[in-house]
């Protein structure tokens, strides 16, 4: 694995005052993988993503992306290197149109040096995420399903090498979940490595190549979905006693 690891996380730890949000997390993600992160509420999944992109500074541990240390870098610099995240609680720019929201990512992300074709890239992404019809709508008027897709569209517009999706299926109905899974697979097929946090276990198991299970900030299992879901510790901690 380490030979072609795109992302290498070692001993990643985050304390909030006395609270341990992440306690020594190790994992690697290979180029082209879909890597699922699951765990009960409060397990530290979102904190993990926040640390990866630099939205919060880890207390200790190292993060290497494409071989370079990125822990301690501010969020916007991590985005410029090609690692971006979406937000579980959607954070659209409500007074901007959908198109303007996406073009912020196109103008300031990893693809920011190619301003001249930003308009074309934005149009392609709106098409791909099914938001083309809503291009001129104010983001504040979208439904939750559309807002989740807008989160993905904005992140994609930054031209990431690795995309961290934080519960993009939360609040969606079953047919929307099917659409979202198709979208995620097509993003991966376009060459983007994906990390995803998801509550819908079936969705994660269905699309992930490997899964990391967190509980109280600690990794309790890691590996292919079929093996991880049979792990007795995972069953008792995450899925409940049976």
């Amino acid at each position, binding site marked *: 694995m380490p030979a072609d690891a795109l992302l290498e996380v070692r001993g990643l730890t985050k304390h909030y005052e006395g609270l341990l949000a992440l306690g020594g997390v190790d994992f690697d993600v290979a180029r082209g993988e879909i890597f699922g992160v699951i765990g009960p509420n409060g397990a530290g999944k979102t904190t993990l993503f926040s640390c990866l*992109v630099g*939205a919060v500074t880890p207390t200790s541990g190292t993060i290497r992306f494409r071989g370079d240390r990125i822990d301690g870098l*501010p*969020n*916007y610099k991590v*985005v*410029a290197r090609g690692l*971006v*995240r979406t*937000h579980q609680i959607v*954070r*659209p*720019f*409500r*007074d*901007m149109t959908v198109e*303007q929201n996406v*073009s*912020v*990512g196109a*103008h*300031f*992300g*990893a693809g*920011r040096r190619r*301003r001249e074709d*930003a308009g074309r890239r934005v149009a392609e992404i709106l098409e791909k995420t099914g938001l083309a019809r809503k291009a001129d709508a104010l983001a504040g008027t979208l439904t939750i399903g559309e807002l989740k897709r807008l989160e993905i569209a*904005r*992140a994609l*517009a*930054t031209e990431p090498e690795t995309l961290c999706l934080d519960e993009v299926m939360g609040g969606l109905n079953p047919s929307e979940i099917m659409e979202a899974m198709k979208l995620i697979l097509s993003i991966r097929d376009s060459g983007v490595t994906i990390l995803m946090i998801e509550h819908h276990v079936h969705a994660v198991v269905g699309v992930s190549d490997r899964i990391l299970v967190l509980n109280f900030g600690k990794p309790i299992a890691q590996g292919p979905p079929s093996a991880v879901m049979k792990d007795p510790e995972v069953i008792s901690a995450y899925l409940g006693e049976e």
Partner: protein
Amino acid sequence: MRQGRRWIRLLAIEAGALVFLLAAPRFLERGTLNDIWNVAFAVILASAWNLLGGFAGQVSIGYSAFIGIGAYTTALLALKGVNPYATLPLAALLAAAFSFVVGLPTFRLRGPYFTIATIGVSEAVRVIAGGVSFTGGSSGLRMPAGSFDFNSNYAAMVILAVGVVALAAWVKASPFGQALAAIRQDIDAAEALGVNSTKYKLLVHALSAAIVAVAGSLFAINFQYISPGSVFDFRLSLSIVLMPIVGGLGTIAGPVLGALLVGYLQIKLLSSPGLRDSYLFIYGGMLIAVMLFEPKGLLGLLLRLRRFLWRFPSRPVPDAG
């Protein structure tokens, strides 16, 4: 397509305004030209403040510092024999540099620190300008004789006013303006999409400060006499904030409307002895009215009026859609 039509309309309005204002000295009397000068000064301050306060959402209550820096730079250099208009670039540069004094330590922080710092720093500048000798202390400075020519000062002021409005429209439509809007609406989400928020806040603050300083330089040339009490006045800072808010925060036309109203009021109030001291009361009342009834300001009111008027002709035509 709609975007293109808006640009053409804006350019037409701007060109028309410029031609009218530059031709005005041929047919208007000096008193009216003075009033236009005052309103143009207000338009510059309001539109420049709006770049930072309206577009990027960073409220500064210390803009008199930049007026003062511009005015003093021009007065001090003019006294050394430099052509006052040749001092404008240096005034702009010094104000931009000074904007970093407040911006660098506070723009990294979240919360009201920037706003609080602007009050403290601008007051400190006023006290220092009144206390040191090279600025003439609290008695101020008089420009050298012969440096005054109303017509060229008037022309410079109206060109700057029209130019600043055009600049604001350009910034708002540019990726830079999109970054500022993103910062105002959700700074963490902006950073998560690659926007270096500290950098863009510093840039727009510097740009805005430079414009205000040039207006301050023209102020010094026109009034020929400046003192800490006139150019570093805290009430001046307050009225700069008031104009874009009353007119319509974060818009292009809003600060212009606010400047027209407040600038006009100021002229009327100052010329009637009975109302001279009531302007803070009137400003406060306007601010409360805007916050309670129309947060989008005069522009919001006008747009609402237009929608209301447009509804009537469209209603009796059922097949129109």
